[in-house]
Structure formats: structure tokens, C-alpha cells
């Protein structure tokens, strides 16, 4: 009897996985503040993050075959109630976000000791968990207004996390302030867009929105809504001319925060853009095709070159990686603007692979900063000899960033080139290859600084603590693993792309 009872409990818990995905980290944040014990807080944060990672794996396993889980919050049926909707696309992003946060937390434990005063550690973890909650919530929800709410939860906690870098460099405060202004303008634009969609359709459920827009066709309100949503999300994604907050925020935030943000925040924003472009609005609308081809595509290519050029001339490793991120976002947007299944697959794969690549590299920077006190090239020169493990992982990350065969970065760039050739846009394929050559230059500079220059006189840095090395090596090895075993990511990404392109037809 008791056995039957437990299985039934497990069954219901299993059914509630979508809401638990968001609820577990959400509850952990106030718990951390209330308990307040410094030793316990880390364990709570890590447990919550690990649990949500396991949930993300379970969810992805359920939807990888193209099925959809629809969860009704509080039993209120959509479109009136809020719905959580898991398909291959967002399950994949959920996996990335919760996985990275589970790896960043052990790393953060050592890293923030030297960067944030001990009395603020509990608040750091609370803000971190809120940020995780927000990002997971944005990804999983099927309700357009809910996206805005979770977006603001993650943004507000992000501003706090960035400002915590002020104990090392006071410019973190102005960086956080700038991001607050830009982020709020972006989120408000997004909510104006949602308001217009509501005016035009009278609903906020994404699947319902898609149906009604498809039925009534595009009118001026819908077009204006699309413009507002693209610009609003563009600010969050850091699409090239809207990227100004990103380099400063990434440079001055605490190392662990930079790792987390670079690997997840912009990726989640790209996912939202994907969701709105393909599931809510129909890609068959001319205004959307025009926006993607004549606005997003040129800016994506501009980002690939301009940001890479700026990255070449940086002398600070961390800032260089921040500019490289802007360039990489260009590649992801390029995949979207192709409007084909292969292009979308490329974007989703790119999103995942770049997430793990950048996380590896930023973790490497954090370790170098921990030992040498700065990430300027002349501070870290020659550290390849004194810190072989850290530097080796940076090399793997760097190769993956360039897209050398055998690394995850190669797969994403290869799929992207394949997609452009399939569409017949071979000049764009050439541009992709050319801009990758720029990546060779800026990554090579780092290798040169780390290995070919003599270590600074009088310094003999110890290798990093294991709690930082292990997460970094897990990521570095997964860069290689996903470069060789391409089935896993490509299958999931293709399922995601098909789900997205199916639009509203796939949603009901």
C-alpha cells in the first residue's frame, strides 16, 4: 500500500516538473536570505540549482521527440490562465541555463571570496538564484506578459550582481547603472509591444496570439508591436547598435557573474526573439521577412566584423571576450535572418555551443584574475607556464571560439555556413569565414601572451583551486565532446527548429 502511495506522489511530482523548474530556485532565494548562515547558503543555492538542472534533463527527455508539455498554473486553462509550455526549443535552453548555473556556483564559491566582502555573500547567492529564476521563467512560460515579468526579475537581479563588482573597481557601479537604464528602456519597449498585441488580439497566451494573428493577418498595430518587441529584445540581446551596455557590464562584473551572464542571459533573450519571430508572429508576413533581411542581417554582419575588430585591439582579456561576445551574437542573428530550418538549427546549436565556450573562457579569466589581480595582457603574461591547467582550458575554449574542427565552435559555424549555402547566399558564407579569421587574430594574441611571453619577474602563481578548475574543465571537455559527438546537440536543435517553424500549427 505504501509503495503505491509513493509512486502516486512521484507521478504527480513528475507532472509538476515545469512549475518546479522555476519554483525551486525561486524559493531558494528568500530561503538563503532568511537563513543567512554563510556556510549553508552556498549549499542551498547549489542544491536548488542542481535540482533544476535534473528537472531540465527530465523535461528535455520528454520533449526531444517533438512532443509538447503544457502545464496550467493553478489549474486555470489557457488562454485565460498562465500556461507553461515546454517544447524542444525551450527545454534545450533550460538545460543550458540550469547546467551553466550548476557549474558556476562551485566556481563562484572561491571566486567571490577575493572579489566580494564576506558579509555580502548571502545576498550575492540570493541575487544569483533570482537571476536564475528569471531566466528559467522567461524560457519556460507560454504567456507573453509572463515573459516580461520574469525578464524583469532576471534583469533587476543582474543589475545588482554587476554592481557587486564595485568592490574591485568602482566603474562597476556606472556599468550597472547604464545597463539599468538601457535594460529598462528595452523591457518597456517590449511591454509596449505586448500592449499593442493585446489591443489587436485580446489575448496574451502565445499560442492563442499566434492563432489570432494568423487569422486576422497583419495590420498596423501588429506591425508596430513587432517593431517594439524586436527593438526591446534587441537591447537585451545586445544586437550590434544596441550593444553599448555589454562590454562595460561584462568587464566590471565579478568573474562568476560574467561567466553566468555571458553564457545564459543574452542566449535567453535570443530565444525570446526566436519565439516571437517564429511562433507568435508568422515568418510568412512580409514585414517580418523585410525586417530580418534588411535590418537584422546587415547588423549581424556588421557585428561580426566591427566587434571582432574592436576585440583585436583590446589589451584586457576580459574586455576582449566581451567584444567577441557581441560578434558571436551576430552569427546567431544571422542564422535567424535566414528564415530556414537549417538556419534556425544553426542558431540554436550556436546558442548552446557558444554558451559553453564563453563560459570556459570567462572562467579562465576569473582564475587568472584571482591569482594575478587583473586581466590586462601584461598582468597575465607567461601564466601558461605557471598555471598549465587553467591555460590549457583557455586554449580549448579559444579554439572553440575560433571554430577549429573537433571543437563545439566548429559545429555551430559549420551548420551556419551550410545554412547560408543552402539558401544560396554564398557571399555571406565567405563573410562568416573571413570574420572567423579575425577571431583567430584575437585568440592568438591571448595564446601568445600566455605562452610565448616570459612571466612577470618575481611572480610565481599557484595553480587555481580545484573547485574552480573542475567546473572549468567540465566545460572545456564538453566543448570537445560536443565537437565530436554532434548527434546530441544537432538532434535537439533540429527538433527545436522544427518546433519553432511549425509556428502555431505545432502549438495546438
Amino acid at each position, binding site marked *: 500500500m505504501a509503495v503505491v502511495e509513493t509512486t502516486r506522489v512521484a507521478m504527480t511530482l513528475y507532472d509538476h516538473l515545469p512549475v518546479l523548474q522555476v519554483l525551486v530556485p525561486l524559493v531558494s532565494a528568500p530561503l538563503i536570505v532568511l537563513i543567512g548562515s554563510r556556510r549553508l547558503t552556498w549549499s542551498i543555492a547549489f542544491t536548488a540549482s542542481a535540482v533544476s538542472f535534473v528537472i531540465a534533463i527530465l523535461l528535455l527527455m520528454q520533449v526531444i521527440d517533438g512532443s509538447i508539455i503544457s502545464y496550467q498554473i493553478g489549474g486555470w486553462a489557457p488562454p485565460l490562465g498562465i500556461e507553461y509550455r515546454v517544447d524542444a526549443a525551450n527545454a534545450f535552453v533550460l538545460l543550458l541555463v540550469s547546467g551553466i548555473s550548476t557549474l558556476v556556483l562551485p566556481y563562484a564559491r572561491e571566486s567571490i571570496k577575493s572579489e566580494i566582502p564576506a558579509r555580502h555573500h548571502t545576498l550575492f547567492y540570493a541575487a544569483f538564484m533570482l537571476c536564475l529564476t528569471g531566466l528559467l521563467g522567461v524560457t519556460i512560460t507560454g504567456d507573453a506578459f509572463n515573459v516580461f515579468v520574469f525578464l524583469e526579475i532576471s534583469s533587476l537581479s543582474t543589475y545588482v550582481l554587476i554592481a557587486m563588482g564595485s568592490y574591485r573597481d568602482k566603474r562597476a557601479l556606472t556599468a*550597472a547603472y547604464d545597463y539599468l537604464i538601457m535594460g529598462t*528602456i528595452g523591457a518597456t519597449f517590449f511591454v*509596449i509591444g505586448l500592449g499593442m498585441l493585446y489591443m489587436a488580439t485580446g489575448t496574451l497566451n502565445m499560442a492563442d496570439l499566434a492563432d489570432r494573428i494568423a487569422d486576422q493577418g497583419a495590420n498596423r498595430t501588429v506591425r508596430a508591436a513587432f517593431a517594439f518587441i524586436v527593438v526591446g529584445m534587441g537591447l537585451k540581446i545586445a544586437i550590434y547598435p544596441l550593444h553599448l551596455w555589454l562590454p562595460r557590464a561584462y568587464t566590471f562584473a565579478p568573474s562568476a557573474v560574467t561567466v553566468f551572464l555571458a553564457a545564459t542571459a543574452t542566449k535567453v533573450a535570443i530565444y525570446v526573439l526566436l519565439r516571437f519571430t517564429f511562433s507568435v508572429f508568422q515568418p510568412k508576413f512580409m514585414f517580418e521577412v523585410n525586417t530580418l533581411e534588411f535590418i537584422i542581417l546587415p547588423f549581424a554582419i556588421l557585428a561580426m566584423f566591427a566587434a571582432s575588430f574592436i576585440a583585436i585591439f583590446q*589589451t584586457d582579456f576580459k574586455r576582449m571576450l566581451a567584444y567577441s561576445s557581441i560578434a558571436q551574437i551576430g552569427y546567431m542573428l544571422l542564422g535567424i535572418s535566414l528564415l530556414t530550418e537549417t538556419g534556425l538549427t544553426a542558431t540554436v546549436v550556436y546558442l548552446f555551443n557558444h554558451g559553453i565556450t564563453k563560459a570556459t573562457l570567462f572562467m579562465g579569466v576569473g582564475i587568472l584574475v584571482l591569482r594575478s589581480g587583473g586581466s590586462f595582457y601584461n598582468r597575465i603574461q607567461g601564466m601558461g607556464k605557471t598555471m598549465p591547467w587553467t591555460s590549457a582550458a583557455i586554449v580549448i575554449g579559444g579554439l572553440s571560439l575560433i571554430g577549429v574542427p573537433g571543437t563545439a565552435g566548429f559545429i555551430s559555424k559549420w551548420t551556419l555556413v551550410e545554412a547560408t549555402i543552402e539558401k544560396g547566399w554564398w557571399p555571406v558564407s565567405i563573410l562568416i569565414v573571413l570574420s572567423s579569421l579575425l577571431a583567430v587574430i584575437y585568440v592568438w594574441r591571448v595564446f601568445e601572451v600566455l605562452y610565448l611571453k616570459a612571466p612577470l619577474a618575481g611572480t610565481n602563481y599557484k595553480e587555481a583551486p580545484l573547485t574552480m578548475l573542475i567546473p572549468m574543465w567540465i566545460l572545456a571537455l564538453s566543448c570537445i565532446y560536443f565537437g565530436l559527438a554532434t548527434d546530441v546537440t544537432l538532434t535537439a536543435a533540429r527538433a527545436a527548429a522544427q518546433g519553432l517553424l511549425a509556428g502555431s500549427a505545432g502549438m495546438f
Partner: protein
Amino acid sequence: MGFELTQEYILGHMNYWLFSVLMMTGLYIVVAKGNLVKKIVGLNIFQTSVFMLYISTGKITGGTAPIFPLDMEVDPNVIYSNPLPHVLILTAIVVGISTTALGLALIVRIQEEFNTIEEDEILEIERAIVLAENAIHGDSMGGRA
């Protein structure tokens, strides 16, 4: 005829006109003002304009407050305004307040560290920091940092 159309165009869309004016006012303040507190004020005006956009769209001509009578016997002839945008905006107001609070808290910290909340003065201080960094790191990098 033409005049009537314009009148209809202006008066009939009064809430949208006011929304646009308020929104642009707020956005202009955010961009044009150098004082960090004034920027937050501009941001508030900008957000408030969106509240107005939502709330005014919930209004239905001749509609009354969306409160059902106690006995729940709803008269089908009574028109109710749409309460949903109002509920949404309650959430957005909370978000706006949190953003303002966080922005002001950041300004307090900026004042503590930089001793000013004027953007141009902060930029000057930051430029000095970059110059100092260049002096340390630039020489060994061939003069550019």
C-alpha cells in the same frame, strides 16, 4: 469633411497622443539630462506613459467598473470595462517601483565612490582611471592599451 476627419483623428485617439507625448518626454529626459537622478525621473515618466496606454485601452465606452453585484446576478445590459490591462499594469507598476528603488540605490553608491552624480564629471573620472591604467599597462604593450 476634412476638418471633421482630423478632429476625429486627434480627439478620437487622445489617449494615444498623450501616450506618445509622455513617452517621448520621458525618453528625451533619459537621453538629454546628465544628472543621474533626473535620468531616473525620465525613466519613470517613460514607464508611466505605458501604464496609461494599457489602462486607457481597457476602457470601453459607456462601460462601468468591472465589479459584479454581490448576488452575482449580472445584468447582461450593463457594459463592464476590461479589467485585465489594469491587472497587468499593477505588475508593471511594481516592476517600475523596484527599478526606481534599485536605480536610486545605485546612485547613492555612485555618489559615495565618485563624489558626484553628474554624468560628465563621472565620465571625466573614468577617463582619468583609464589614462592611469594605460600608463601602467600601456608602456609594456607598445603604448596602446
